[in-house]
């Protein structure tokens, strides 16, 4: 008898307590700022914490609530965010990749125009024009970039090149294919790839290298058709590059993809510069010694960027507070707190550069060089909206199986029309 009652009472207490805790999570209060991101990996988590600390110090009495969701390179976070935005329950600020990844949010009225904040803070002068152009959607800017990553890079182990007698990384994809024949002859894999998105990343860099920056931008703005001879011959090169890769036994993660370079079973890998912090921190390798990197073939002087940025959602409890967070994100001090820890460079060109050494120092110099041509990344949401990007995923995944480039080109061209 007593046992039964006790069980019922304890059940009641537990359910009450769990209900209470849910109340505190969902409870709206004006003294906290909820920031939504997918920064849960090593380095980026510490970087966010450092910015949060600075924000709390500058705004006494305000609590920073980190609503980060891990997993799937942000895809889990994006799915949960979509349900919150559809329910009109936005966080006080959320992370997106700068560029057309935000197009849907803009068209659906989920984010507010930040053009006036840019004017007030004078950000128009401190961000490079190429970045601002890619941030602008229908003449307005909706996001504040915190960091810059670079996509058009080819990574290698200098020792492997020495052993194979290859003087240096290829300058063009044609040269790469020449090298690939030699490398294959010596029983190594010329190019390591990883999961599907790394293959899309590779396609983007091949297109950029073969078409050049102008045609690359025209391709994604719709002025150049995927079915044109120019693009088709570039895709043809991509097909050959993919054939020279280990796509049949691709690594399951980008880290494992790079491991093949480190161990020397594969020679090159095309990957973004989050690789540098992985190679230096997890693998304890030195730039120029244990690993080296060059711009991907045919893209010298071009900076294929992606950027994590923050937004001001529509219907937040306190827009002023969110704006303060965005000012922190856009400030030189905030960017210099975050980026050295994450292993990326500040989007601002006037943030003190002495914190960035090794690879980061090299890439920072190019980012700030006015002669550098800045273009946006496809695989990381700058030049293609989410719908288009997802359809390219499908088409590319099917292409890897059927190998019919003509069909791939016409499918993607059609998807461009349907998703614009």
């Amino acid at each position, binding site marked *: 008898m007593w046992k039964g009652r006790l069980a019922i009472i304890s059940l009641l207490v537990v359910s009450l307590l769990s209900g209470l805790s849910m109340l505190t999570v969902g409870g709206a209060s004006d003294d906290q700022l909820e920031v939504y991101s997918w920064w849960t990996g090593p380095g980026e988590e510490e970087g966010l914490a450092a910015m949060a600390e600075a924000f709390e110090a500058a705004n006494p009495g305000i609590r920073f609530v980190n609503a980060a969701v891990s997993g799937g390179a942000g895809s889990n976070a994006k799915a949960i965010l979509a349900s919150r935005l559809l329910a009109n329950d936005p966080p006080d600020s959320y992370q997106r990749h700068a560029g057309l990844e935000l197009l*849907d949010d803009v068209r659906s009225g989920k984010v507010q125009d930040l053009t006036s904040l840019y004017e007030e803070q004078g950000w128009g002068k401190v961000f490079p024009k190429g970045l601002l152009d890619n941030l602008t959607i229908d003449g307005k800017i909706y996001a504040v970039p915190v960091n810059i990553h670079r996509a058009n890079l080819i990574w290698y182990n200098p020792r492997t090149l020495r052993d194979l007698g290859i003087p240096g990384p290829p300058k063009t994809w044609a040269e790469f294919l020449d090298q690939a024949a030699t490398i294959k002859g010596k029983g190594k894999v010329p190019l390591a790839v990883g*999961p599907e998105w790394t293959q899309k990343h590779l396609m983007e860099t091949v297109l950029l290298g073969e078409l050049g920056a102008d045609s690359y931008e025209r391709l994604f703005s719709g002025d150049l058709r995927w079915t044109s001879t120019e693009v088709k011959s570039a895709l043809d090169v991509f097909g050959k590059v993919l054939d020279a890769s280990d796509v049949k*036994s691709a690594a*399951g993660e980008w880290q494992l993809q790079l491991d093949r370079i480190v161990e020397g079973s594969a020679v090159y890998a095309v990957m973004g510069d989050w690789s540098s912090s992985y190679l230096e921190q997890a693998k304890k390798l030195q730039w120029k010694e244990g690993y080296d990197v060059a711009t991907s073939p045919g893209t010298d002087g071009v900076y294929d960027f992606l950027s994590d940025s923050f937004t001001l959602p529509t219907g937040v409890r306190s827009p002023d507070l969110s704006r303060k967070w965005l000012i922190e994100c856009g400030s030189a001090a905030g960017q210099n707190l975050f980026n050295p820890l994450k292993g990326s460079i500040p989007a601002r060109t006037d943030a003190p550069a002495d914190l960035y050494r090794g690879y980061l120092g090299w890439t920072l110099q190019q980012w700030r060089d006015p002669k550098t041509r800045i273009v946006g990344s496809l695989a990381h949401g700058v030049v293609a909206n*989410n719908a288009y990007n*997802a359809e390219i995923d499908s088409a590319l*995944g099917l292409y890897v*199986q059927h190998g019919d480039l003509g069909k791939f080109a016409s499918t993607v061209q059609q998807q461009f029309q349907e998703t614009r």
Partner: protein
Amino acid sequence: MSAPVHVPRHSNAPPAVPFTPPPIRRRKRRGPAWLAGFLLVSPSLILIGVFVYGFLGWNVRVSFTNWRGLSPSYHFVGIDNYTRLLHDERWHADVRNLVVFTFVFVGGALLLGFVMAMLLDKGVRGEGFLRGVFLFPMAISFIATAIVWRWLLDNGSGDDTAGLNKLFAVAGLDFLRSDWHKSDSIWAIAAVALPAGWALSGYVMALFLAGMRGVPEALRESARLDGASETQVFWHVVRPALRPVTFSAMLIMIHISLKTFDLLYALDQGNLRIDTPSLYMWFTTFDGGFYDRGATIATVLLIGVALVVGPYVWYALRTERR
């Protein structure tokens, strides 16, 4: 609950007479007899009604709209989404993959589970231990299973060889080397039946073992007395008794197979060789914002599962009525 009556051992006093409460006067019933029962189940009825059937209906409704992206649209477009899906190349591949996977996985799990149950039923030393061993994989989440098998099913060559292929190489069984789920064959997804079957055949074994133990020993004995061999006992006595178990096990496996998501998602994300409708539904909805297409795929999947579960419910109702 009645407490045992305490009788003092060395006492001449008569044992205490258990107290019998006077019969409770029956209260006058308020309302009809079904009302109390109905009130008792109504909370779950309402919750299931709203959160299962209500949202099912809502999902079907979305599948007839052109909702894309973050602004919901309920503009009715008829069966456009369904016809478009019929012409979708990725969908074709997904359906083919699902059929292959279901056949190999369900067939394999049933066969393996049955054999394991039969061996255990014959009486092995340490049966309890073995039962646990066979059942344990089911206790591991599909995500963890996938992470382990991602390595076991690695298809690297040369220095990169790992997992099962390495085992084969060490054991001198090189001819067994396979590209598993990364091979170019349309059977690539059949390789995923390995981890799925590994995880669930123990469960099938438990079902079959329970079924075999449910056959009364008297039936077997009498068959033996009539001169039946062990094979005949199995075929004519045990097998017919196992038919309902086989039926339930098959249906449970098929509907698990139709819904498999996490295993494939964690095994090799974005590899369309092992893409299935449930994965396509997730990616197109949450990466691409195609809520209309996602809802359409969900509806087709629902119909698929209903076609499998429907006969089962019908069968269960029929046998219960008997």
